[in-house]
């Protein structure tokens, strides 16, 4: 096990669609697990990232916990990969950037239809929301970007096989999609 490539994954302000797309590599996953071992990931439910070769980040940065997790990944991963539109440009969560944060909270917790006992959550255990959603390259250095919403399973497969076979990862035209 020790000579396997260690991979960690996480979802920040994302929808887990990129993780689902990773699972879409289907039976090739059996080939992949011969080569890689998953560290922190929704697949393993490990809480903290340890020394890894590759860190895959899905989602943008929308709160203080996202910043913390992102920095932990950068510190522990030799190669950090922004996966999907949200990690690369903020994606659909960044559409809230055009509204004041207070208005977003009011709409969600005070003024929304059918809300009872309206109040904005303020538990100290909740991560503080950032004023805006940011792509991850605005917080840490990112080594590779896999565009798409989500990137297709073939994108993940091409990226992994290129990297594991010592090639500079390169996506052919038909795999580069922003939507």
């Amino acid at each position, binding site marked *: 096990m020790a000579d396997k490539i260690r991979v960690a994954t996480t979802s920040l302000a994302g929808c887990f669609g990129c993780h689902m797309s990773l699972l879409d590599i289907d039976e090739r996953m059996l080939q992949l697990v011969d080569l890689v071992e998953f560290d922190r990931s929704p697949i393993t439910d490990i809480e903290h990232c340890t020394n890894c070769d590759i860190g895959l980040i899905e989602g943008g940065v929308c709160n203080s916990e996202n910043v913390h997790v992102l920095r932990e990944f950068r510190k522990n991963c030799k190669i950090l990969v922004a996966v999907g539109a949200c990690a*690369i*440009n903020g*994606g659909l969560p*960044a559409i809230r*950037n*055009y509204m004041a944060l207070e208005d977003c909270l009011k709409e969600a917790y005070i003024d929304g239809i059918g809300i009872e006992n309206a109040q904005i959550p303020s538990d100290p255990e909740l991560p503080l929301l950032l004023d*805006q959603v940011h792509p991850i390259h*605005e917080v840490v250095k990112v080594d590779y970007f896999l565009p798409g919403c989500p990137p297709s399973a073939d994108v993940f497969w091409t990226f992994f096989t290129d990297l594991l076979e010592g090639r500079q990862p390169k996506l052919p035209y038909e795999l*580069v*999609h922003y939507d």
Partner: protein
Amino acid sequence: MSKTIRIDGKEIPFEEGQTIMEAASAADVYIPHLCHHPDYTPHGSCKLCSVQVNGRNCTACTFPALEGQDIISQSQELQEDRQRITQMLFVEGNHFCPGCEKTGNCQLQAVGYYLNMLDNHFPHFYARREMDASHPDILIDHNRCIFCNLCVRASREKDGKNVFAISGRGINKRLVVNSSSGQLKDSDIDVNDSAVHICPTGAILIKRQGFRVPIGQRIYDHHQIDEVALEQESESHGR
């Protein structure tokens, strides 16, 4: 004997009065562009078609073809410049492809694909821009306008209407509508106008057309922009 220029070492014939872009396109040589369209006066604003002419950078859509020019277009340096320009267009606007109905038919997106642009590199502006949904048939989403001036030129030169103009400078630059209220519904634009159909991004959209062609079956889902542009534009260029 016809006059020639050289583009990336290839001899290209040209006629007096042609621009480098026109000569290149007529010879099936693609130079990336967004603000250029063969039917309208060159504008030279997007700078994507920048080429090196005898060692000097020029925009191919505005620079005349002249005998003896040695032109470089496909160098790594120029492609990297074009990629940076495209990245700047993405971060200065609000281009969220998954939420845009122009996706797959969008020239800005297709140029990004062509240049193998995988990220936006720069910090995002997330500028706050309005939509104008006042017109019954046409929608303007100012978040996606790249100020290419094509709608301005099409309205003026082909439709004879002067519906659009670009106002302001720098970050305050914006597309404005020539009507008493500033809204599209009070202008004399019509859904059949050329200006409505020329937008290279999803800034000007025709209502009730979204998803008529499903995602995955759209133009740039299957064809690179170089082949599409050459096919659509070479006839006009070679005129």
